[in-house]
Every structure is written in C-alpha cells, then in structure tokens.
C-alpha cells in the first residue's frame, strides 16, 4: 500500500518503486497481479480450500488414512480458484469431473500416506459457485 501511495500522483507506467532487494519493479505488474487475485470466499468456493487447499495436507492425510479413501489436494489455491472460476459454467446441470489441465498443481493423498497424480477435478455446484471441488484419482 505504501508503494501505491508513493506513486499516487504519477502515471503508472512511469512509476517504479524499489523491490525487496533494492531492484525496481513496475507498478503496472503489481496491479496486474492484483487484478488476477481471486478472493477465496465461502459463497463462491464453499469448503474447497478449507478441506482440499494447499494448507490441508495434515487433515487430508488423516482423512485418507482414517477413511481408507484417497483424497485430492490443490497445491496452489489461487490457480485452482482460477480453474474453478473459468469452468463454473459447466456445472449448470450438476456436478462434473473435468480433466486436470496442464500446469495446475494437484495431487492425490493415498491412505498409506503416499502421493499420486490426479486425473480429474470434481466440481460440485452450490452457493454462489461450488460448494466443494477436489482432485480425483
């Protein structure tokens, strides 16, 4: 925010502010990243990221072990949120399983604690988007 204030009265393309290591970075890049940021709300994403998000490894490991059922995990919440947002029109008639797109970081946590690749991503409609979504074996 301090960076933004520094540049408040200058045209963005001309405004450079010091980066963490003293290098300069263009404020336009920062604003583009902000533009791309998707707020993770329960209304839009339901339980997706509290249950299957990048910080859910321990929970999913326990649930896989306890239930005997493999569990899917998104390893980059923002990238997953973009995938869900871009495919939300496909759930109009109910839940769907879509192939994992190249570059989306996901994995399956198996009951024995090992990891394996996911084949599809399940989107379950609800709320104002999905009520849950997760990678499937």
């Amino acid at each position, binding site marked *: 925010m301090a960076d933004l204030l520094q540049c408040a009265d200058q045209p963005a393309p001309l405004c450079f502010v010091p980066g963490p290591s003293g290098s300069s970075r263009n404020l336009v890049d920062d604003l583009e990243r902000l533009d791309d940021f998707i707020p993770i*709300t329960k*209304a839009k994403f339901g339980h997706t990221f509290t249950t299957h998000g990048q910080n859910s490894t321990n929970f999913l490991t326990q649930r896989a072990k306890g*239930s005997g059922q493999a569990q*899917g995990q998104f390893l980059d919440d923002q990238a997953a949120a973009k995938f869900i947002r871009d495919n939300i029109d496909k759930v109009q008639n109910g839940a769907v399983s879509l192939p994992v797109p190249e570059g989306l970081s996901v994995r399956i946590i198996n009951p024995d604690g090992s990891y394996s690749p996911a084949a599809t991503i399940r989107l379950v409609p609800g*709320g104002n988007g999905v*009520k*849950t979504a997760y990678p499937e074996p």
Partner: protein
Amino acid sequence: MWFPQKDAKDFLNRSLTLPASGFEQDWEIELADATRVSEFVIFLKKSRLKHIYEEALVSLILASFEDAIWRESFDDEVWNDFLLYILSDRNRFNDVIFPWLADGNTDFAISDRLRQYFS
C-alpha cells in the same frame, strides 16, 4: 478436523437411500439435500443412533440447511426443531459444527445462525 466414518456413511446411505456413488470425498457436502432436510431431522430425532452415526447425520443436516439458505427454502420451524435437539447436549456436536462457524470474514450462509449458540 472431524470427518464422518465409513461405517456411519454406509449406514446412512442405506437408511436414507442417499444417491451415493461411494467415491464422494466430501460425503456430507455432496449428498446434502435441501428438499429432504425435514426428513433428515425427523430421522435424527426418532432414531436412537450410535454417536458416530448421529454425528454424520448432523453434518449432513447442516450441509442441507446451508443448501436450503442458498435455494431460499430455509424453514425456521425445522431449524428450531433441529437446534433444540443439538442444544440438549451442547458440546456433543462441537467437532461437527466447528467447520461451519468459519471466521466471520468469509462465512457460510449458516455460520451466523450457528454462532448465536456455538463459539
């Protein structure tokens, strides 16, 4: 974090004829049904269930109430009936209710109603 046990899911899939595939990772969320919430609450009250079955059913009911709010079919009378049951032993379902309380910043539709009684 709490999750429903396989035995409980199998029992409720059979008893309530839920349309389960067996591959649901989020069983209670995926099989929630806003149109059957009243039936689920009656089953909860009338059946003397083992605690792990009861917990799983409460989680299914909470997810169904959440769906009902989004579908604008929430029934206060059924909700009050359900609340009376779970408040009769306030701490019994804490683990099941906790994930629905959220954090106040980004809530589930049902979070506010639960926070009035649980925290």
